[in-house]
């Protein structure tokens, strides 16, 4: 159980990763899985832009185009953005609060594998030749009439992956509530931990509606129910309500962690305390709450009537207030700071104008009368890419550069990082800025091609060229990752030199038990305070060196998830094949057996002996 590098065979290395319950390794696996789906979604995006580059294009058929846009949206939201953010939350948040792991390491692993199997389930649809094709929102009237198994893959795949997200969210909540180091009060938590906390609370309240909605859809399509069939007394609008009661909080679940990452970056590289910390925290909480009160602004044109539209319009615009508070706080953090323009900082500076533009178009759509004009045009496409790419994806790329040394023990190349930034940033604005005008000029969204002579040709071409720039940026990033991993130059605890929070006071990557001694936190930006007072290590221990209790790894999460994966196929083929129903029963039984094994077998974990920790500490001192 030593952390010293040992010679291990491939088999034991693989077993180690498959059974791991270590939050740092699970973070890396989330990053790998999310990164894979990010590239997949990116390829789908490129196909969309190539198809739309010229009028009357017949590169792909209309049906395939529908499948590609559906899978692009679903993949990017559920399988790329969220898991990558979970990856950073897992890897960094426990370090920021001075914990040794998350509260439920086993559940953490279960959540990861549910995401991976759910994502695989969704994408296996490509090989069956019938991918989901009713849009990422899968509005019920379209979804229940969609032929083939496409939407079945959507409903079951997201059900599995969504369960994983719910588990992860609950785990983070319990971790932050219960496992903060001594002295780490709520109002001393780093902003990334705070946004993780609020985003997790939103997951807790937002995912159950999605679960219900997906079950309704599953039963409607596969088991003959009629929740959404108006001819049978159902109500097709109900899906839209349920989906957006989940869906609007979901977009804040995506953006809040990015806000947290940028708050860390602004403060680190301006070498100043975050301006208005308290107002930042309350703005985050307020955004989280208001996020649940605005879902019907996606449905202004459904015909809810002027009263509902007016109230939801006002509620929507109210969210601009706490968001504005945040923007001003970031600007004032930089104001008078000693700014160092590193790659993460470059992303952070690029994020502010990009996200503000997305926010402003959001308020425009919040005005219900204007939304009647903009609804289902490219203006909407431009808006949500401005907030999701300009906010979340820039945040993810910034965090990749910022936390890479902490997660992998080596720096990404700064020059290549800046090259990535400029390609991605210019490409992003080139792709999506012009789409606002395409919307004004009347180009509807989700069309697989358009006629010549409507004045849309050059704008679409510019948009497609921009997408190529973004792709080049991502390819440079992948090259950067491969090259620096091959060189593998080890870095010190705080490679940026200005780390302020606890994760920068321990090794990169951290020992498997994180902290040799639980730290004592004496204020916000604890490491910064210690260093200002002459404590070079950045940490004051709260306890003497003692044995550390750690959890055992487990293979059960993979098997448990495998059962759901199998049951999913069973449910899907239940009606047309004889083996469908037995497979469904078998898969569920398999999962229940795994649960029973988990419940009945006591696993009390093990202790890392004090001697080993003392040895690790001695080696660390020797390295300096």
């Amino acid at each position, binding site marked *: 159980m030593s952390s010293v590098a040992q010679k291990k065979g491939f088999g034991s290395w693989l077993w180690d990763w498959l059974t791991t319950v270590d939050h740092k390794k699970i973070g890396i696996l989330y990053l790998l899985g999310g990164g894979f789906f990010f590239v997949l979604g990116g390829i789908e995006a490129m196909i969309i832009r190539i198809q739309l580059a010229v009028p009357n294009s017949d590169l792909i058929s209309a049906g395939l185009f529908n499948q590609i846009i559906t899978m692009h949206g679903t993949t990017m939201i559920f399988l790329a953005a969220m898991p990558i953010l979970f990856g950073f939350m897992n890897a960094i948040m426990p370090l920021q609060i001075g914990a040794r792991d998350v509260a439920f390491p086993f559940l953490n692993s279960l959540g990861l594998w549910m995401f991976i199997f759910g994502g695989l389930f969704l994408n296996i649809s490509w090989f069956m030749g019938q991918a989901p094709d009713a849009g990422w929102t899968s509005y019920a009237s379209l979804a229940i009439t969609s032929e083939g198994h496409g939407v079945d893959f959507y409903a079951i795949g997201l059900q599995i992956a969504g369960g994983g997200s719910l588990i992860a969210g609950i785990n983070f909540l319990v971790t932050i*509530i219960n496992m903060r180091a001594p002295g780490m009060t709520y109002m001393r938590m780093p902003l990334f931990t705070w946004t993780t906390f609020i985003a997790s609370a939103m997951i807790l309240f937002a995912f159950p509606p999605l679960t219900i909605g997906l079950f309704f859809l599953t039963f409607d399509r596969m088991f003959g129910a009629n929740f959404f069939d108006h001819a049978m007394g159902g109500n097709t609008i109900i899906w839209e*309500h349920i989906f957006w009661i989940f869906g609007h909080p979901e977009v804040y679940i995506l953006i809040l962690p990015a806000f947290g990452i940028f708050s860390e970056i602004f403060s680190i590289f301006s070498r100043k305390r975050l301006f208005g910390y308290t107002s930042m925290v309350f703005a985050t909480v307020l955004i989280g709450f208001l996020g649940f009160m605005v879902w019907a602004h996606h449905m202004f044109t459904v015909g809810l009537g002027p009263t509902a539209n007016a109230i939801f319009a006002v509620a929507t615009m109210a969210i601009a207030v706490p968001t504005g508070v945040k923007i001003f706080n970031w600007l004032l953090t930089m104001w008078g700071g000693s700014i160092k323009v590193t790659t993460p900082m470059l992303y952070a500076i690029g994020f502010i104008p990009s996200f503000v533009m997305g926010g402003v178009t959001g308020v425009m759509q919040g005005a219900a009368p204007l939304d009647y004009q903009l609804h289902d045009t490219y203006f909407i496409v431009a808006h949500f890419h401005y907030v999701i790419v300009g906010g979340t994806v820039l945040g993810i790329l910034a965090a990749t550069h910022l936390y890479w040394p902490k997660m992998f023990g080596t720096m990404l190349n700064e020059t290549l990082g800046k090259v990535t930034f400029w390609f991605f940033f210019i490409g992003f604005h080139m792709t999506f800025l012009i789409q606002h005008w395409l919307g004004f000029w009347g180009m509807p969204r989700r069309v697989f091609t358009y006629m010549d002579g409507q004045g849309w040709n050059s704008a679409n071409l510019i948009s497609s060229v921009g997408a190529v720039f973004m792709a080049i940026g991502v390819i440079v990033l992948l090259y950067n990752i491969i090259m620096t991993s091959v060189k593998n130059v080890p870095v010190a605890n705080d490679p940026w030199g200005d780390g302020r929070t606890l994760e920068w006071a321990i090794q990169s990557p951290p020992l498997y038990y994180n902290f040799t001694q639980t730290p004592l936190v004496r204020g916000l930006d604890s490491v910064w305070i210690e260093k200002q007072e002459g404590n070079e290590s950045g940490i004051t221990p709260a306890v003497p060196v003692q044995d550390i209790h750690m959890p055992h790894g487990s293979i059960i999460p993979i098997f448990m998830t495998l059962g759901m994966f199998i049951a999913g196929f069973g449910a899907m083929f239940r009606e047309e094949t004889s083996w469908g129903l037995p497979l469904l029963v078998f898969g569920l039984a398999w999962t229940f057996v795994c649960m029973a094994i988990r419940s009945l077998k006591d696993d009390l974990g093990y202790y890392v002996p004090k001697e080993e920790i003392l040895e690790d500490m001695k080696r660390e001192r020797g390295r300096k």
Partner: protein
Amino acid sequence: MAEIEIYKKSPAEFDLGQRRARRSMRSQVIMFSLMIFLTLTSFMIVTASNAEVIGFSKYYVIPVIMLFAAVQVGLQLYYFMHMQEKGHGIAAMFMFTGALLAFLIVLTFVTIVWWN
């Protein structure tokens, strides 16, 4: 291995523990009888209503049963799931936040979405 410490309670501490356990047991029993009483009353009201006893119209029966149900949920949470004890503040906050969100969403539906 972590050392196992054996802690011996003083007689005063032991007494205090006993008294607290007795008090807790007493309140549990009282609340349990109250819940049984409420359940029996609910059944009797419904039976009376079905037998068309004068005064037991559905406009009386339904609100009363809803009220009893709310009281039962409260008792269940606070006495049998120990929410009245210390250290349950966060759990209570999350439950009330969830209840508030659910209430607001339902309120929205019944006031401005469906019957406006």
